């Protein structure tokens, strides 16, 4: 598979009143053509910031200070604004979380799709292609729908319209920032099925950001888990769920309620999400980690390949399986 996107050591900083924080702290990953790559994390993990940093959609004073972004073999991180504008929307496109605010409420849906098309198309061609797009995203009565305004669409339909606009320029890479979080379960299911189908048909790469492990499990082939601005674990989805190698990943999986009830008590991760202004010296997850030792708190932990294709930022990754089963046995006693 051809590598479509490669991010190396991306750093984004936000200067605050008396300090500087790094919501994206040396993040590296790659996405292949036709592959869905998931990024899982909670609020403050840096997952959304990463997407925005890639597409230069940051709100000042946040800005990228370091790192290399290679898309389709070209170092787009070096591009000028004009050069980058050609990439944004055409090569790499983005779908946002809130369907209420990501569509312009005063423009008709049709107009918003037309805007995305190439200027060289005739009016007729635009109309035809727009109708085709709406059909592809599962909106029936496409011709009439084109003339409607966003407020006349339901949440699920708005998200479909958003996807249609995104696809108008045939992007090869799609960044999806929590695209289904605001939707009902059955609608989320529909949108995920749709996105997967479109991804396969167009051989698109997708970066899928979510806080929901289940959604990422369903949609993605490879994934990364982010915590406090860093990737703490990265591998194929199957590998991560069958053999997690970072306590945060394990903690997330345990604290997630599931349909298969094992016990009436969930196992939450103790403590609170990290404050980027006051990060610990050593491992950032150590304050909440049930297996943290003094070694973990000494110095920052680098990410390393603990198994082929499986990266973890934990010193105890190798013994993780044993530690987990010990903990399970303890709980049952």
């Amino acid at each position: 598979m051809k590598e479509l996107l490669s991010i190396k050591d991306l750093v984004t900083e936000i200067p605050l009143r008396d300090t500087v924080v790094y919501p994206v702290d040396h993040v590296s990953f790659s996405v292949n053509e036709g592959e869905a790559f998931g990024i899982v994390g909670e609020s403050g993990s840096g997952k959304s910031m990463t997407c925005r940093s890639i597409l230069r959609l940051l709100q000042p004073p946040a800005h990228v200070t370091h790192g290399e972004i290679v898309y389709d073999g070209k170092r787009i991180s070096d591009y000028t604004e004009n050069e980058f504008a050609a990439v944004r929307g055409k090569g790499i496109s983005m779908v946002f979380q809130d369907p209420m605010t990501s569509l312009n409420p005063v423009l008709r849906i049709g107009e918003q799709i037309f805007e995305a098309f190439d200027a060289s198309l005739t009016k007729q061609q635009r109309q035809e292609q727009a109708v085709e797009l709406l059909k592809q995203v599962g909106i029936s009565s496409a011709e009439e729908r084109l003339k409607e305004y966003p407020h006349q669409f339901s949440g699920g339909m708005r998200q479909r319209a958003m996807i249609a606009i995104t696809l108008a320029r045939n992007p090869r890479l799609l960044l999806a920032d929590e695209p289904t979080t605001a939707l009902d379960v059955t609608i989320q299911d529909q949108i995920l099925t749709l996105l997967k189908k479109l991804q396969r048909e167009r051989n698109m790469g997708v970066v899928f950001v979510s806080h929901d492990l289940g959604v990422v499990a369903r949609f993605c082939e490879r994934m990364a888990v982010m915590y406090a601005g860093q990737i703490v674990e990265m591998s194929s989805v199957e590998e991560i769920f069958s053999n997690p190698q970072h306590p945060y990943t394990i903690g997330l999986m345990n604290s997630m309620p599931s349909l298969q009830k094992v016990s009436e008590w969930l196992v939450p991760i103790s403590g609170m999400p990290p404050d980027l202004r006051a990060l610990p010296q050593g491992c950032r997850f150590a304050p909440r980690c049930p297996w943290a030792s003094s070694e973990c708190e000494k110095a920052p932990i680098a990410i390393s390949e603990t198994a082929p294709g499986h990266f973890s930022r934990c010193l105890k990754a190798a013994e993780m399986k044993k530690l987990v089963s010990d903990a399970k046995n303890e709980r049952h006693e």
Partner: protein
Amino acid sequence: MLRTSFAKEPKTHRVFRRLQMPWNLVAACIILIPVLIIAIFPGWFTHQNPTDFNYDAILSSPSAAHIFGTDSFGRDIFTRVLYATHLDLEIGVFCVLFPFIFGSTMGVLAGYFGGWFDSLIMRILDIVVAFPFFVLILAIMAILGPGMINMFIAVSIVGWVSYARLTRSEVLVSKKMEYVQAAQILGYSKPRILFKHVLPNVITPAIVFVVSDIVLCILLGSSLSFLGLGVQPPTPEWGAMISDGQSFLSQAWWISTFPGLAILLVGIGFSLLGDSLVDLFRLN
């Protein structure tokens, strides 16, 4: 080399942000506290009388004896500006007091209870707002006659609607807030919910509006005095003084200019106060 996406924040902003003092408030106090002192004790700053004629020094330009010069009756402009301060501040304050209290109350009640009362208030609002503000004031004063008290009455009749509209729209949003619902579920009485839970959270925009309204009312008072409807001569009032100096603008620019500067200064002071209030009331 990585090109950054947006310009970095300019250094001056960063420096200001780091010094945590509320510059707005400091500046506002630097202006307004002396103004207040002058308003209460104008005599501390000048020994002359504002209404003393001095035919020897008519239309004399600013000098050591008369810092701001004299007008066509030989009266010292500096003294008159100082003595007018309390009047103009009174105009500013009293013209907003009733509208603020009455208008905010009506707005809160209309927004919270809705129904026929809300419709009634909104219709009255629509009618009042349909007329240009100044025209309405003039019309009312034409009926009531000139003078400061009548001006207060006229402004009160017309001015409360802005506050009502402001608080009403805030209350409509606030009503849906879950802490208001929680108060209802806890069985709190309606007055308690209104005064302790709704009002404090909707009054901030009105308070900010008050501060700029004070400035507007001072200007209004000045305009009315300019037209001869407000304060009657020989009482000094900044607007009236500007009017007096109108015909002398080319020969004796100081007659209109210094009262104008006084209005400007007080206006800036209150604006800064308003800005600092916004910052103060912001919860983070």
